[in-house]
């Protein structure tokens, strides 16, 4: 395949990455939260024999680190035998004392392990770093595979590339076996620090892949040493927490108290053996770079084997001989902190000015146990596609191992990472490097032992009520914002033609009608109807343009879309790929820049708005259609119904109850906004009468845009929500809906349309006002009962004199 052909094919890859929403958050990136995952189309290819060695070496290393954790958090025999320097443990900021003495339920410390490997130009493999807290990258590795298999399908099948799926099954089996530990239908959750984390995409991905609830600390609670998930139906016990949260954040009571990301009381639950944390709290200790110097001896002692793959040559300065070596060979090594610290960059003494190098030497001598020196591995290169052609770049390979219930299974593949600049040896996603798929060649099935049968019973049909409250809350608001955007688009679309400049616009939206309706909806200031025609036109124009384009305007479409985006991101593991694609399209549509001459009426936007209605309908349709009819779907629809009812109540208030005596243009406009003109005309021919319009838009339970329709749907929904208190005959939310529905059903529409002596529609106004209050109270009642989240705070009870 030539370069041209590859570049053409790669367009598909870029589209897949965008529409799948594969992103990585880079701290301090001006572009904002997420940016597309950087990937190169040419895979790194590893031969079969080479892989057999890597596989054995990585499984061995995972086993070794797991055994090491068991000793250091237990009897510390290795310290007493002088095989592990006490300073590396006692002086290590990653040795949380509350974790000492805990043997994890199930006995495994390390469920997931990753290592960054380097291949020197002579083909030898080295371990550069160990990742043991909550290793990231396996989700990205799988996504890279999906992309490359689509871009290079022929090459892929021709080469016999080993599949990744079995690895994820093996890991799931291992987790399930541990979680079960004698229980049937164990409950597992994936604990994330939240959507701002740099690998949130992967958390959502993993949760979706394994069908686990994605939870944040506030979704869990500890009672009587047992961890529970807060769901709509109440508290659901949790047996295993797959965590993507760092060690020190897991429990604000016993670990770092300045962060409330974790679950208070979690350590005590782990200690009493009712729940497993994977990986165990404290496993970050194994990421200590200085430890690498001692692994060969520890491997002999703990496993009775030679360490198969060497670590990059490491000298810990806390011992005399290595310290002397490092000071004598400073220009040949890289200097790093002995204990892993985020944000600490390595020093390259070879490229330092003499003064700085001397200063570094002094610092090492002052605190030798704080420094480690490593050999600078010459990384091998691989070709990378750039816009001008293929260039060589340094690569490193992240490989993964998972506990499968009996041993460690290694993923046949991995995440290949590419350095940013031509010569750079720094290979990290956090600083914006790239990635590649990794193809391990071989006849897949020969090397994978047949998938072990799972001995754990899984309850396929869980109670519907197991939806986490926070997810229900997000779905509820997603429903509301989606409806709000749609309502906004419909409003703007009907009002725009009123700006055509033709004063006599028949019975459709004239400027004056526009102004009064918008003033009634509080979108324009109350004095607007008294302004001059030119001023009025300018005002409406300005408002409509802002609503379409200004992302900071709260009633605007851009702002509401941003909320939809935020909520969808939080719900990522629950949305289908299609839903995600449509959302992406919506954003692109509204991401255009406003017209250069804002004085021009924004007619050009009509096309945009028309199209937006399609896209919105597609989004709403996919949301509703692809969701099983459980409580999640119910809360999404409750959100839509409440919002739509509220909007209609407001339109009726501004467009009928508070409108001037000559109602016709308003009625016409309301019917258009509500997409009900045709229904009205088929039913009543052409005479516009307020009573009939009220019937259609307020009371007709068959019209999907009427208030009554929303209320009758809401009534069905609230009847099906989980019971919290058996003694309550009609819970508050049911009473509120019943009351609102009854008031609409019992209303005498013709009377409501009659004007009082002062020319006002007082009864109608009162009814609408009451409906608005009922709907708002309904929203509050649902939130208080099902969706509310109290925030934790820390107590410090120590006063000192």
């Amino acid at each position: 395949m030539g370069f041209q052909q590859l570049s053409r094919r790669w367009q598909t890859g870029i589209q897949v990455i965008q529409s799948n929403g594969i992103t990585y958050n880079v701290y301090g990136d001006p572009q904002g939260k997420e940016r597309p995952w950087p990937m190169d189309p040419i895979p790194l290819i590893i031969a079969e024999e080479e892989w057999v060695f890597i596989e054995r070496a990585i499984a061995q290393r995972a086993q070794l680190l797991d055994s090491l954790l068991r000793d250091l958090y237990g009897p510390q025999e290795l310290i007493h035998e002088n095989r592990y320097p006490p300073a590396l443990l006692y002086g290590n900021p990653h040795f949380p004392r509350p974790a000492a003495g805990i043997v994890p339920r199930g006995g495994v410390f390390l469920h997931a392990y990753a290592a960054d490997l380097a291949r020197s130009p002579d083909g030898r493999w080295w371990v550069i770093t160990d990742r043991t807290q909550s290793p990231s990258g396996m989700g990205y590795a799988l996504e890279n595979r999906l992309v490359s298999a689509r871009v290079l399908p022929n090459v892929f099948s021709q080469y016999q590339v080993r599949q990744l799926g079995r690895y994820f099954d093996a890991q799931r089996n291992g987790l399930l076996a541990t979680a079960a530990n004698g229980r049937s239908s164990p409950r597992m959750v994936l604990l994330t620090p939240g959507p701002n984390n740099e690998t949130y995409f992967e958390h959502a991905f993993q949760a979706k892949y394994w069908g686990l609830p994605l939870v944040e600390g506030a979704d869990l609670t500890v009672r009587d040493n047992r961890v529970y998930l807060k769901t709509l139906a109440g508290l659901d016990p949790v047996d295993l927490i797959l965590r993507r949260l760092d060690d020190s954040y897991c429990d604000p009571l016993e670990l770092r108290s300045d962060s409330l990301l974790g679950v208070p009381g979690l350590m005590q639950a782990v200690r009493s053996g009712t729940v497993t944390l994977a990986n165990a709290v404290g496993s970050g200790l194994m990421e200590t770079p200085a430890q690498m110097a001692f692994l060969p001896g520890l491997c002999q002692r703990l496993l009775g084997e030679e360490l198969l793959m060497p670590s990059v040559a490491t000298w810990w300065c806390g011992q005399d001989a290595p310290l002397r070596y490092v000071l004598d060979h400073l220009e040949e090594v890289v200097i790093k902190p002995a204990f892993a610290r985020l944000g600490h960059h390595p020093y390259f003494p070879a490229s330092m000015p003499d003064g700085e190098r001397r200063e570094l030497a002094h610092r090492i001598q002052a605190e030798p146990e704080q420094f480690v020196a490593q050999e600078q591995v010459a990384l091998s290169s691989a070709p990378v596609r750039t816009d001008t052609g293929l260039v060589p770049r340094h690569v490193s390979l992240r490989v993964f191992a998972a506990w499968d219930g009996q041993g460690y299974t290694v993923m046949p593949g991995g995440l290949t990472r590419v350095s940013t600049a031509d010569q750079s040896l720094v290979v990290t996603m956090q600083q914006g490097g790239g990635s590649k798929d990794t193809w391990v060649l071989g006849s897949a099935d020969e090397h994978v032992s047949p998938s072990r049968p799972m001995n754990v019973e899984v309850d396929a049909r869980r109670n519907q009520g197991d939806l986490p409250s926070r997810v229900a809350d997000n779905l509820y608001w997603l429903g509301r914002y989606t409806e709000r955007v749609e309502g906004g688009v419909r409003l703007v679309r009907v009002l725009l033609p009123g700006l055509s400049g033709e004063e006599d616009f028949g019975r459709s939206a004239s400027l004056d009608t526009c102004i009064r309706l918008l003033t009634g909806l509080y979108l324009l200031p109350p004095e607007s109807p008294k302004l001059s025609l030119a001023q009025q036109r300018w005002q409406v124009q300005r408002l409509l343009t802002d609503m379409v384009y200004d992302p900071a305007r709260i009633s605007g479409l851009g702002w509401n879309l941003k909320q939809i985006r935020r909520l969808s991101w939080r719900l990522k593991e629950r949305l289908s790929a299609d839903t995600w694609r449509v959302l992406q399209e919506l954003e692109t549509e509204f991401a255009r820049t406003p017209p250069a001459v804002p004085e021009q009426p924004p007619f050009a936007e009509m096309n945009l708005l028309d199209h937006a209605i399609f896209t919105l309908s597609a989004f709403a349709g996919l949301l509703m259609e692809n969701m099983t009819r459980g409580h999640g779907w119910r809360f999404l629809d409750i959100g839509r119904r409440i919002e739509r009812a509220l909007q209609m109540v407001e339109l009726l208030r501004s467009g009928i109850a508070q409108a001037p005596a000559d109602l016709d243009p308003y009625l016409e406009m309301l019917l258009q906004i509500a997409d009900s003109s045709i229904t009205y005309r088929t039913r009543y021919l052409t005479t516009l009468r307020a009573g009939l319009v009220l019937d259609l838009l307020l009371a007709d339970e068959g019209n999907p845009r009427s208030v009554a329709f929303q209320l009758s749907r809401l009534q069905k929904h609230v009847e099906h929500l989980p019971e919290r208190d058996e003694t309550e005959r009609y819970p508050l939310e049911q009473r509120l809906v019943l009351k609102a529905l009854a008031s609409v059903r019992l209303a005498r529409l013709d009377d409501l349309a009659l004007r009082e002596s002062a020319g006002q529609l007082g009864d109608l106004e009162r009814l609408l006002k009451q409906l608005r209050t009922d709907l708002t109270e309904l929203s509050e009642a649902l939130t208080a009962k099902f969706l509310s989240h109290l925030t934790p705070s820390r107590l410090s009870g120590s006063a000192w004199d």
Partner: protein
Amino acid sequence: MLYRARHVTRYVYESPVSHSLNEVRLTPRVLDYQQLHESAIRVEPEPASFQFRKDYFGNDVTTFSVFETHDRLTTTATSIVEVQAEPATIEPAVTWEEARNEIANHTGPGCLEALEFVFDSPFVTTTPELLEFAAPTFTPRRPLIDAVKELSHRIYTEFHYQPKSTSIEMPMIEAFRLKTGVCQDFAHIMIGTLRSLHLAARYVSGYLRSGTKYQGAEASHAWVSVFVPSRGWQAFDPTNDVLPSGNHLTLAWGRDYGDVTPVKGVAIGGGGHTVEVEVEVRPLAR
């Protein structure tokens, strides 16, 4: 001397708390020179569960959770403790350099355990400033005990003791620069100075007998214990410039305040809160 110690902690919340989890270290340790006759912890409102365990440093820890909605929480710890004067120090001739080397090589008895207390910990980070501060006192070949006594004395005289002048959020080095603080600052500064010389020093939390001339008698108190090879741990109270001897009740020890916080917790809901603490330590007639 026999004492009755009573320690009351009362939180008052701005808005009701739906539940709270707490961890306290309020049970005095049993030592060669300290016996525990009685100890009880009462909580109002009644917790749904109480639990007891020993932490990594051997301190008694009590945890409890309250699940009913409450707007105040009162913890009362009462103990009856007998304390003897610690054995008079036979000043061993070990110099501070010898002590440092012996701990580093961890050959002697207790040295490995002492190594836990040589390194930086979350509340105590050593800096070159502390090393400079130590220099005039830790002169070559000076006996360890002698030098530590002088260090304690210098902190007592060169630093200004001022109640409520610092909070636990303030880093130790700030208090060092301000030359002002309360007992836990003085303890942290002394520990940091000793650790900058690679000596082993731990943080002790406890009480002082009430009604004495000492500073810190009406609340929680904190002091320092230093490892002396072939003798063991020797306590120093830099806030009062004394060697604790019969008037200090030991609750718990660790690397710093964070390991032995007497009372801490997490409340769900509640907004802000205020806290009142009362400590009273009275001699009991036999």
